[in-house]
């Protein structure tokens, strides 16, 4: 009895994403964005994608490449203020954008990963974000129903991984990654470093291996991670 091996190739891992697929992509700004998996998704070129990601990165980075290539039909996000192209495409009707409060997007994804139907919250209940959303009273208090989010595929970026797919994230590169790594039918992780089984302390694993379907070990790190000179 030993734990199964999930190491695959970049091309093969991404090939499961077809036209019309929904794809969760980890990252908050640069940290934790799976730039190599995104580049391969651009290279393979499936279209009409629904992308679920906290933000739209910045010009010429990450999700922006998918916008340039015209592969995105819909973006489920929280804030795209740092990507003028995303805003322009939204305003021109070239992509549909659904905005969520940031912690509610996190909770909807987590609910999907936890096999729940949704969550009840009062966040945004007085705002236009609550328009057209189902409401319910529990113990005399009004809540909005926020449905669980799942995707066909999740692309996440880990700092370290073992062959079973146990993942550890670095610093604020964690963000949405462990949530998305539970919420897709197929979870693909890229990792900066492959470590042998047993090297990650069992108490310190951030995403347990059973949630991960395929592991892509990065040969080199995308230059998009470089510290920005502002």
């Amino acid at each position, binding site marked *: 009895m030993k734990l199964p091996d999930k190491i695959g190739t970049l091309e093969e891992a991404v090939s499961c994403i077809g036209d019309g697929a929904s794809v969760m992509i980890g990252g908050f700004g640069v940290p934790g964005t799976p730039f190599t998996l995104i580049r391969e998704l651009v290279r393979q070129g499936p279209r009409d994608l629904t992308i679920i990601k906290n933000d739209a990165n910045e010009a010429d980075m990450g999700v922006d490449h998918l916008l340039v290539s015209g592969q995105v039909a819909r973006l489920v996000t929280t804030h795209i203020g740092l990507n003028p192209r995303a805003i322009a495409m939204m305003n021109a009707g070239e992509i549909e954008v659904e905005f969520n409060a940031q912690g509610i997007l996190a909770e909807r994804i987590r609910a999907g990963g936890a096999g729940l139907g949704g969550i009840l919250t009062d966040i945004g209940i007085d705002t236009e974000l609550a328009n057209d959303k189902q409401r319910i009273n529990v113990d005399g208090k009004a809540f909005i129903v926020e449905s669980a989010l799942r995707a066909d595929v999740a692309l996440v970026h880990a700092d370290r991984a073992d062959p079973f797919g146990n993942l550890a994230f670095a610093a604020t590169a964690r963000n949405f990654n462990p949530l998305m790594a539970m919420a897709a039918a197929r979870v693909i992780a890229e990792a900066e470093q492959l470590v042998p*089984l047993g090297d990650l302390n069992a108490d310190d694993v951030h995403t347990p291996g*059973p949630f991960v379907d395929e592991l892509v070990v990065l040969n080199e790190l995308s230059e998009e991670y470089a510290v920005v000179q502002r």
Partner: protein
Amino acid sequence: MVARAADEIAPGMVVNLGIGLPTKVVDHLGPDFPVCLHTENGLAGIGPTHPPETADRNLIDAGGAYVSTIPGSAFFDSAVSFALVRSGRLDLTMLGAFEVSQHGDLANWKIPGKFSPGAGGGIELAQKARRVIVLTTHTDRAGNPKLKEACSLPITARGCVARVFTDMGVIDVTDTGFALVEIAQGITPAEITEATGAPLALPKGDIPTF
């Protein structure tokens, strides 16, 4: 029966085995067999059990047995543990039963007025594991069938059971009810049919034994 049940575990699966079963089933898998055993109190990658002398007081399975880790094990909290179950990451679970109906309904957590300690994690395992296998005696202590047309006890989950292993045979739950797959050595088709509280379809030709 346990040896035969171990055959249900395919390479690469994530599996949750009922109380007492893991060690017994695991003994029938080779050292290089790729599988991940899950326990709902927060561990993926259960290793061998320990006698008290070498046990880690912080490391038990859901049945309270002192277990160990293997290279690549991971601990997590109870919410993550059941997230794994409910979101479809658990390929197989093996559970005990008071009753199984011909529609695959399972009753295994409560006998009104006699036994009601709470369902624990059993409902989620039964309802959400991709495949649920029941291991049980074919009849209760009074000799009454446990495989029935309908459950009389409060159910754990509806339509969840795929296959039942008993001391008399291996029975599948199909769209048309119970179907015998294998029969225990020394048991006749008439005996197992008699001990089953619902119609039991017999396979055509010879019945495999175990």
